[in-house]
């Protein structure tokens, strides 16, 4: 029984563009006040899903509800949402200061002082036309709007494009610090999985339009192990277990095994001269989304 109050509820959501199915029967709920990672390969359907959540696109089937309501043309709901997309195209002649002047008109919780502080942190030039800013500076502008907007539901679609390593870490640190002070629901799509893995409390993984994984980050951490050694020994050890990925090099093999290993497993592995290493978030997602056989439905890769 789920007694949590979902802020986002998606039921059987599908989106088809002519003969291309961008989303296929996606269902999940998100509790309020968490940072959720939306992960997946290019073309997995992440942006389509986020556009549907913000009423920018329309479902072919199923429903997306935010605060229990359909977000499409729903001012009361949309006012509580901020969607920062890497594909935002700024109107000709718009300078960063124009964007930051306009943002508080639409985000009731806008914190101007915080925005000013972030402009300094990201060294964003305010009086240059946005289209003439570097890709990284444009991303910084989006990040500033997303953070200072303090919308109860904030969605970032690959907000880091072009940001250098320092600016990305400024974003992560600021996001985490501000989230601690002002908890809200943050949905973050990214390819830099390992960089954000410590931020995430929940993970959604999309692959070819299907939801592959819907799981808390805590239960995902350490939920798979890489076992390496002689191919025969590795295969013997892996027999009967769910293997997410297998690499071979000469007579050596490495397999990614889903599920937590018991002490007995570790003893058996040591006895067989097998090395066991934790699998990073990124490697786990890569393994999940590069399996040769498509996942029939929501993956159940992790069990205690």
């Amino acid at each position, binding site marked *: 029984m789920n007694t949590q109050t979902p802020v986002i509820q998606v039921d059987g959501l599908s989106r088809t563009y002519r003969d291309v199915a961008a989303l296929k029967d996606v269902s999940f709920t998100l509790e309020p006040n968490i940072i959720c990672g939306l992960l997946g390969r290019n073309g997995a359907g992440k942006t389509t899903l986020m556009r549907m959540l913000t009423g920018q696109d329309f479902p072919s089937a199923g429903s997306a509800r935010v605060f229990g309501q359909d977000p499409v*043309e*729903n001012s009361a709901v949309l006012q509580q949402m901020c969607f920062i997309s890497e594909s*935002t*195209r700024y*109107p000709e002649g718009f300078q960063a200061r124009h964007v930051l002047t*306009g943002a508080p008109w639409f985000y*009731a*919780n806008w914190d101007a002082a915080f925005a000013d502080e972030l402009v300094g942190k990201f060294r964003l030039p305010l009086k240059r036309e946005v289209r003439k800013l570097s890709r990284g500076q444009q991303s910084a502008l989006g990040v500033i709007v997303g953070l200072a907007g303090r919308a109860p539901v904030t969605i970032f679609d690959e907000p880091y494009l072009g940001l250098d390593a320092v600016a990305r870490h400024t974003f992560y640190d600021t996001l985490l610090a501000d989230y601690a002070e002002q908890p809200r629901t943050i949905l973050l799509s990214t390819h830099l999985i390992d960089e954000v893995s410590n931020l995430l409390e929940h993970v959604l993984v999309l692959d070819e339009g299907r939801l592959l994984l819907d799981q808390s980050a805590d239960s995902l951490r350490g939920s798979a192990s890489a076992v390496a050694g002689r191919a025969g020994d590795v295969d013997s050890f892996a027999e009967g277990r769910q293997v997410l990925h297998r690499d071979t090099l000469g007579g050596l093999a490495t397999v990614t095994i889903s599920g937590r290993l018991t002490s007995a497993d570790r003893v058996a592995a040591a006895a067989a001269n097998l090395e066991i290493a934790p699998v990073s978030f990124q490697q786990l997602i890569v393994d999940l989304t590069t399996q040769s056989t498509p996942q029939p439905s929501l993956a159940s890769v992790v069990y205690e």
Partner: protein
Amino acid sequence: MTAISIAPAATRIPSRHRITKVMRLQMVNRLTYLGIPWIITGVALVISIVVAVLISVSVPEPGRQAALEGMAYSWAGLSPFWYLAVVGVQAVSAIFPFALGFSITRREYALGTLVTFVVIAAFNATGWAILTEIERAINAAGLTFHHFTALWFSEVGAGSVWLSLFTLQIVIFAVASAFAAVYARWRAMGMLVLWTAVALVVLGLIAFALLTGSAVPIIDWLMGFTITGFFAALLIPATLAFALGWAALHRAPLRG
């Protein structure tokens, strides 16, 4: 059991305020709506003055006055209007996706943009109508010069001048934004269908007029309009164009 919150917790901004804020968003870059049309007005006026000076110095006295009166057929006063078609397209193609990114509903965007068009058209019409009256006074004082008092503007009163300037802008905004909205919704295929439909309607009307022998009565009927009546009636097709734009936009997805 799943409990769903039905009321967002944070502060809300009333819808009418958000429509006003869409207007402000449209006006953030004032160069687009006000700067460039008035720069074009100024440049065109300077060109007309130069032409008038050239006529004055180069045409001998007997024909000079008639030559200056010839400027009454100049379209120079309407030169900013062509640019307004660009404004109408940009208001949709550039601001609509940006506005949706600010969590604005399509309805709020459409209403805010419509109000922006009306306010801008009224502002520009007032400015140009005042300049028309000033030019009329200059001509009354004996100095022949026609830039704003060209075409029908020299023949009608200040109210009709204002109405025709206002309506022309509204028609241009409506048609340009409707085309941009159709493109936003259906892209190139929408353009193809719309242009074909426009061509068929125009051809159909001409065929109807010719085949039923009603061309002359229709022309007589149109000529029977006063300037005021004609431009007031133009607000009807403008309204239809706005309606077409909204029909396209209200289900337009964000792309790109």
